[in-house]
């Protein structure tokens, strides 16, 4: 599974992208977040307030209940501020 992080989520996690192989039970964004929180304090800080984090699965805005699998690209970022 390919993970991407943007803006302050990237700064807190400490990397812009990585490939992870979570157990098969990690099949939703929510379960993925729980899995990532175990990876270190940076992740814990980044995901401390899930209301402040947005997610995209395969480049489409998604929710915490969205399904994810080994072939997916999942991105975490703050609410967008372009324009």
């Amino acid at each position, binding site marked *: 599974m390919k993970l991407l992080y*943007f*803006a302050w989520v990237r700064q807190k996690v400490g990397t812009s992208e990585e490939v992870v192989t979570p157990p098969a039970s990690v099949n939703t964004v929510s379960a993925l977040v729980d899995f990532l929180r175990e990876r270190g304090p940076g992740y814990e800080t980044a995901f401390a307030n899930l209301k402040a984090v947005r997610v*995209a699965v395969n*480049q489409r805005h998604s929710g915490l209940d969205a399904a994810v699998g080994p072939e997916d690209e999942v*991105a975490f970022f*703050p609410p967008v501020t*372009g*324009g």
Partner: protein
Amino acid sequence: MSAIRVQTADFDPGEEIAKLGGAQGTTGAIATFTGLVRGDGGLVAMTLDHYPGMCESEISAHVAAAYTRWPLLAVRIVHRVGRLTPGERIVFVGVASAHRQAAFAACEFLMDYLKTSAPFWKLEEREAGSNWVEARAEDDASVKRWQSP
């Protein structure tokens, strides 16, 4: 006909408008919006981060939605990324139609969605340090007016 570009380089609004006009003689109205970096609060620079690929696909989806909603002839959108200083252009949205109402409305619609759904993030740089711009509730409210009840 639509053109969507995400780039670090500056753009020429005049050139974009000329390209929106077309030679077919059916265009009666071109509405454009150009966003600039505001230098208030001692802003030194603004760095735009983005999600390559998703930016283009989000913008394309909203351009397609605009075409189904209004009789448009052309749309051109340019969004810059990287480090920009006060006074520099950030974004351009230009829409061509036969009549002004559609052009004005579609231009606002596209700009509202660009601000609330395209994955761009602004990092403000000041003398005291840098901080990420927070999303504004007003922008979410602006986009709601395009959603039918």
